[in-house]
């Protein structure tokens, strides 16, 4: 175990080194591509190794750094939970480290600052890794801020566009409101535990009221960072505007750091479970999942669409965590563990496929310079490898067997279906409704990714630069392959991976999921073999064998297929403009769920006598939550300006009055 901790420290050191090395790219641009990004990849590899060792050994390692406050040196701790999240960060960072050299080639001739990109990427990665190891609130907040601030600069990287600057400011604002809530939450815990070290907080015995305050603050703070509805509106603004490999890190990994913070604080530090908390998390998670996917369906900017899907998937993770709280609070330890494992499994799944999809979007951006789905089409023939990997990502995120997304959704359903064991009818029905919403979410996600893949990769190109898109360099393909392969592996061998994951609930909750793996690697039986079993390797094997047999028997290898014009019911041969667009594809959904969107649809006559159709679908969260608060702040600021008379004597009078009031309060 101490070796694992050193390995994790090495990962942080490598990330910092990459940040330092990047500074030299101001003189030699190649440094960023050839030294700095491979270093982040190495850092990811070291984190992955450290995480795997921590997971398999199941022990705990601690250390102190000679940094920090005089009375509180920085405490480091590596246990199974942080080990698992190190694996998540490590895998995606490794893939991004391999992918980025190809992607950054185009940046070398641009006007954007390379040292800023490389430097903040290194700091960002180091910050995320340090959050995992932090064992006191002080170091945690320092690492958290390092992560938030450095990612702010990455969001604002293309700052020549006003929209990006606005998105970055919003991101910074939300990150700090969230950080404030987290800080206050730690404050509550520290005042009862008598210290900022996590060990002291673990020992604290909180009464229900204060524990709920700590929970609410942690949920608000981490939930804001994770992008839960209704606080999600910053996420689809901020994540897509960063360079694509950074978007992959932000959506794939940084959101998971927030999930880690929530699990660490609520499940580990507070260590109490109450059904009221479970209900809060469950309801918020369900709403995030459903609204996230519905808003995603309305998008036609590929990266923005993927960012909305992060809201959906974080929602699914929190459905699992909410059910875990609910079951643990009512004394069903086994079921709580199933839900907890489901949430963890979805955490790593989402990191893998969302990272993969963002890398794919980056590949399209790299070779066709296009983010708008309405201008894509036919990319599968232009870039077959990216097309294949993107398809794997689409199938995985749509929760279809035999890929990984299906396994975590299956586990979540299995936990939900045990709701009959709960004593209260109200709780039972809420879990049942959450399961219904999850089913709806899954089906809508599939619809959304049919739209994405069908419009972007199939059909014919809708614009000239997409028609001439070229395949991306090998390094970029390798980065995508590195994330696509585990998507398949985690889908086909779930039992093996759950055996590995088992160390986490064993340490955090004190219960494992031994019966899940009791029948060998072929069978996944989370509750008991009688209740449900899923032979994932058998399903995948049969699917493959039958498919190959079918192709061999009927296709006879590559039997010739005659090419001709499209039939299309005998109409004129279709032109690219006659294809279904992304907006058209989503139109039925927009109509059915119209109440949930803010839709403005107009037909305006133009000067030349033609008519122009505009459609704008926006997020209701803006009108309901964000704009009123913004207006409130503005009004308050305007009222404060009344004090501003311009006369020094009045100001001095105000200062004196303030002083007197303060003295009166203290005395």
């Amino acid at each position: 175990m101490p070796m694992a901790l050193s390995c994790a420290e090495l990962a942080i050191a490598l990330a910092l080194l990459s940040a330092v090395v990047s500074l030299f790219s101001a003189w030699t641009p190649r440094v960023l591509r050839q030294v700095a990004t491979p270093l982040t990849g190495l850092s990811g590899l070291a984190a992955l190794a450290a995480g795997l060792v921590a997971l398999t050994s199941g022990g705990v390692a601690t250390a102190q750094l000679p940094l920090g406050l005089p009375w509180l040196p920085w405490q480091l701790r590596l246990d199974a939970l942080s080990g698992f999240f190190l694996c998540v960060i490590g895998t995606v960072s490794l893939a991004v480290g391999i992918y980025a050299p190809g992607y950054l080639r185009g940046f070398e001739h641009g006007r954007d600052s390379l040292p800023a990109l490389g430097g903040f990427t290194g700091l960002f990665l180091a910050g995320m890794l340090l959050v995992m190891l932090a064992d006191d609130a002080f170091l945690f907040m320092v690492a958290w801020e390092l992560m938030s601030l450095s990612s702010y600069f990455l969001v604002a990287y293309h700052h020549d566009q006003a929209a990006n600057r606005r998105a970055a400011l919003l991101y910074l604002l939300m990150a700090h409101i969230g950080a404030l809530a987290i800080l206050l939450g730690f404050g509550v815990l520290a005042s009862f535990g008598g210290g900022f070290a996590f060990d002291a907080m673990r020992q604290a015995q909180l009464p229900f009221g204060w524990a709920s305050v700590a929970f609410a603050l942690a949920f608000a703070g981490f939930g804001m960072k994770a992008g839960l509805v209704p606080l999600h509106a910053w996420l689809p603004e901020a994540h897509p505007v960063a360079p694509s490999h950074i978007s992959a890190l932000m959506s794939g990994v940084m959101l998971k750091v927030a999930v880690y913070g929530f699990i660490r604080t609520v499940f580990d530090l507070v260590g109490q479970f109450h059904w009221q908390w479970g209900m809060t998390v469950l309801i918020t998670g369900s709403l995030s999942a459903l609204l996230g996917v519905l808003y995603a369906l309305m998008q036609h900017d590929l990266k923005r669409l993927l960012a909305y899907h992060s809201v959906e998937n974080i929602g699914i993770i929190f459905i699992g965590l909410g059910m875990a709280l609910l079951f643990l609070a009512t004394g069903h330890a086994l079921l709580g563990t199933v839900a907890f494992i489901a949430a963890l499994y979805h955490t790593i799944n989402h990191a893998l496929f969302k990272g993969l999809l963002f890398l794919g979007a980056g590949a399209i951006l790299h070779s066709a310079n296009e983010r708008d789905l309405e201008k894509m089409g036919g990319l599968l023939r232009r870039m077959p490898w990216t097309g294949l990997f993107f398809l794997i990502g689409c199938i995985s995120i749509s929760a279809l067997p035999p890929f990984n997304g299906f396994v975590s959704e299956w586990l979540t359903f299995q936990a939900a279906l045990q709701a009959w064991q709960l004593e209260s009818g109200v709780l039972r029905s809420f879990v049942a409704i959450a399961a219904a919403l999850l089913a709806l979410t899954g089906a809508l996600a599939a619809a959304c990714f049919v739209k994405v893949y069908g419009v972007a990769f199939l059909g014919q190109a809708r614009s000239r630069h997409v028609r001439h898109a070229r395949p991306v360099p090998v390094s970029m393909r390798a980065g995508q392959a590195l994330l696509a392969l585990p998507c398949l592996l985690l889908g086909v061998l779930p039992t093996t991976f759950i055996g590995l994951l088992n160390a986490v609930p064993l340490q955090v909750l004190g219960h494992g999921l031994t019966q899940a793996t009791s029948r060998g690697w072929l069978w996944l039986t989370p509750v008991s073999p009688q209740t449900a079993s899923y032979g994932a390797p058998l399903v995948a094997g049969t699917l493959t064998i039958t498919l190959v047999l079918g192709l061999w028997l009927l296709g006879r290898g590559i039997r010739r297929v005659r090419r001709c014009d499209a039939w299309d019911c005998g109409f004129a041969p279709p032109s690219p403009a006659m294809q279904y667009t992304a907006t058209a594809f989503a139109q039925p959904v927009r109509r059915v769920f119209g109440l949930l969107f803010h839709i403005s649809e107009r037909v305006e006559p133009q000067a030349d006598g033609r008519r122009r159709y505009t459609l704008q679908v926006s997020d209701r969260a803006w009108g309901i939550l964000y704009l009123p608060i913004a207006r409130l702040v503005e009004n308050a600021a305007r009222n404060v300006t009344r004090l501003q008379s311009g006369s020094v004597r009045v100001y001095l009078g105000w200062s004196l009055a303030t002083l007197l009031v303060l003295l009166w309060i203290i005395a």
Partner: protein
Amino acid sequence: MSLAAWGLALSQALLYVALAPLLAGWIRKVKARLQNRRGAPVWQPYRDIYKLFGKEARMAHTASLLFRAAPYVVFTATWLAAAAVPLVATGLPTAAIADVIVVAGLLALARFFLALAGMDVGTAFGGMGASREMLVSALAEPAMLMAVFTLAMTAHSTNLDSVVIYQLAGTGMLRPSYLFALAGLVLVAIAETGRIPVDNPSTHLELTMIHEAMILEYSGRHLALMEWAAQLKLLLYGALLANVFLPWGIARDTGAVALGLGLTTVIAKLALLGAALAVSEAVLAKMRVFRVPAFLNLALLLALLGLLSHVILEVGA
């Protein structure tokens, strides 16, 4: 689990493939009689499939490799899903491989590729069919899962085999949740298999179709596989309704008598269901596509009511 049991499971899976066109032919025949036509013989679908396999497959210039692979994926996934639904006998080893959520997942996989194939050539009809199909399924899939979850919660298992056995051992008590679930599942089955009033399998009016629009560009063996997969899906839903809600007669051991009885009863049940479907198709008109969500919301509502009435009323009782 013995080799014989696996053999039986394999033959049941093959039986699905063999019987699927027959059910489609039977429904067509009954429908024709109701319309005062003589109609094609019940084995006409077999002839169609045979003929299509012999024909040359043609593909549009714009079609990609996915278009070629899709029929195989669609057929295999649908077939695998069917193999996990008990048809003639219970207690087969295949039942443990895939529970009802996996069945729904495999059907969703088939639908995913079907819709992608529809969009591949880049015609407006294909895109339209795919868009509508995904809307219909987005509303139908949760309804289906809710309906089956009601049964699964009652039987304390998502394994279809265990649900059937639980039903057989049941006291015959009529649970309100069952009726809701059954009604919801019937509506879902109609929508998912593309029957009137949601979709019309024999339409040739371009603007009204969903499933046919997606496979418009297929020909030859590819079309045969797509048609066959659709027939398999119809049989799957028939078997689900017949064996899960009315499981009586299904073979519980591997004896010849039990199997024979199981086969006879399931064919009788499916014939009845098919006739009922034909009658409903003869008296109903296809609805506008934007009326379909109302239809499916009803299914979702019924299924959810079933689930809620189960978790609220029946669990503690």
